[in-house]
């Protein structure tokens, strides 16, 4: 026996309880962690995709030379986009979860809680990302577009090859932030019976009436997850900044 010893058959202190609960319900916490990650990753990825699409729609301009059908379609799309963004930004995610889950069930569709959780997360992410993408597009110097237009690039191609790559780079920190937020926000999905970490803690805590210890366990798990991802994102950001120097193409030096 070392200096610190735990009597895990008869836990007394909070620390002992934490270890006891963790080892006894290891599988439950592990499953909860996986599910939390699963929902956060899928919800965020699809949310980003949706956010990009909605952000691009919101940035669309109606040209005077466009035909009536295109003008009408763009207006409709823009209308839908702004209603969507407003609604999801102005209501709490926990309420959205309830409405979507029970709403779809009332329609007679038996929606899996996990799928509902992913849908809620992605819709929520999409609304926030749309604004971020719009801001990112706006942050790209207008001269970049003019440079492309002046060589005959269509507005669409300009968006794909020039504006979006630059906007993407500008909003990477915000995207990382959104992912971390989602990782933590999945905890509200326990209200629609998703067996993620928060639900695990609630169940485990209830078994022994040890809520403090049980939630402390998942706090540590959330912290470690976020901490690790944060470090990974920081590294990625550094990598993406690219090299400061460049290789001189010496084979063309004599042309000077």
């Amino acid at each position: 026996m070392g200096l610190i010893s735990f009597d895990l058959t008869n836990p007394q202190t909070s620390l002992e309880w934490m270890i006891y609960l963790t080892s006894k319900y290891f599988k439950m916490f592990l499953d909860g962690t996986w599910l939390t990650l699963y929902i956060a990753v899928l919800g965020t990825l699809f949310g980003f995709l949706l956010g990009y699409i909605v952000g691009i729609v919101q940035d669309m301009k109606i040209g005077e030379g466009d035909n009536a059908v295109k003008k009408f379609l763009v207006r409709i799309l823009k209308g839908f986009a702004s209603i969507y963004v407003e609604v999801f930004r102005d209501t709490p995610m926990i309420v959205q979860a309830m409405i979507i889950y029970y709403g779809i069930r009332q329609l007679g569709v038996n929606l899996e809680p996990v799928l509902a959780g992913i849908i809620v997360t992605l819709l929520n992410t999409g609304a926030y990302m749309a604004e971020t993408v719009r801001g990112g597009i706006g942050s790209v110097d207008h001269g970049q577009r003019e440079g492309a237009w002046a060589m005959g690039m269509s507005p669409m191609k300009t968006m794909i090859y020039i504006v979006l790559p630059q906007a993407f780079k500008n909003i990477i920190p915000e995207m990382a932030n959104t992912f971390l937020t989602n990782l933590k926000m999945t905890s509200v999905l326990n209200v629609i019976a998703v067996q993620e970490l928060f639900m695990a803690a609630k169940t485990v805590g209830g078994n022994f009436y040890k809520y403090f210890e049980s939630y402390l366990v998942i706090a540590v798990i959330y912290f470690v997850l976020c901490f690790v991802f944060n470090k990974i994102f920081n590294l990625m950001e550094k990598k993406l900044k690219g090299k400061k120097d460049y290789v001189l193409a010496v084979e063309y030096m004599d042309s000077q």
Partner: protein
Amino acid sequence: MDNTVISIKDLSKSFGKHEVLRKIDIDVTEGEIICIVGSSGSGKSTLLRCINKLEKQTTGEIFFRGKEIRDVQREINEYRAKVGMVFQSFNLFSNMTVLENCMLCTRKVLHISKEEAFDRAITHLKEVGMAPFINARPDQLSGGQKQRVAIARSLCMNPEVLLFDEPTSALDPEMVGEVLNVMKELATTGLTMIIVTHEMAFARDVSTRTIFMDQGYIAEDAPPSELFSNPKNPRTREFLSRYLAG
């Protein structure tokens, strides 16, 4: 065969109530090197931007090889592919290397093969002395180098006309020369060029025709030998004396 490339007819442009261009008529003939001079706010840059359709004219028409350029995106794109533009602020794509900058539009607009795009890029980068820098990114270059790359990038499209919007105005004085030299070289190739500039010596020596703009009007349109030595319009005289004195 009519060798008028661009024809501008009765073009006006207003921003709200402010009239920037009034009744502009210009015919640009193949091989001409037109320098547009005038004080700031006289409308020269706006005129150039109208020619490239980056600004929409309020009234008037622009013809390219006798065909009117209407406000239809596809027509505008096709037209712009033949009329290149070099900007004051370079507008090199900052997410790409020098080589990628020179290859993107030839690949995506003209749809030429990768090999040909590469060959064109290298040829024109050599012309402007920037071939060794193909791997550099725009923010690693000096202003003069950026502008030379921008010129090469435009040349890759094999344009019929090249527009220059104050190409040396954003440069440090010691870099103006390298860009002007490149432009002088280009002038000898027979490429049609329209250049908005404050470099009076360049306009006098290189242009085949100089246009003086004042308050949105074309005040004088003459060969440089005439315009600089014997200006007809009192406003031109005033402008030139201010420039030559200062």
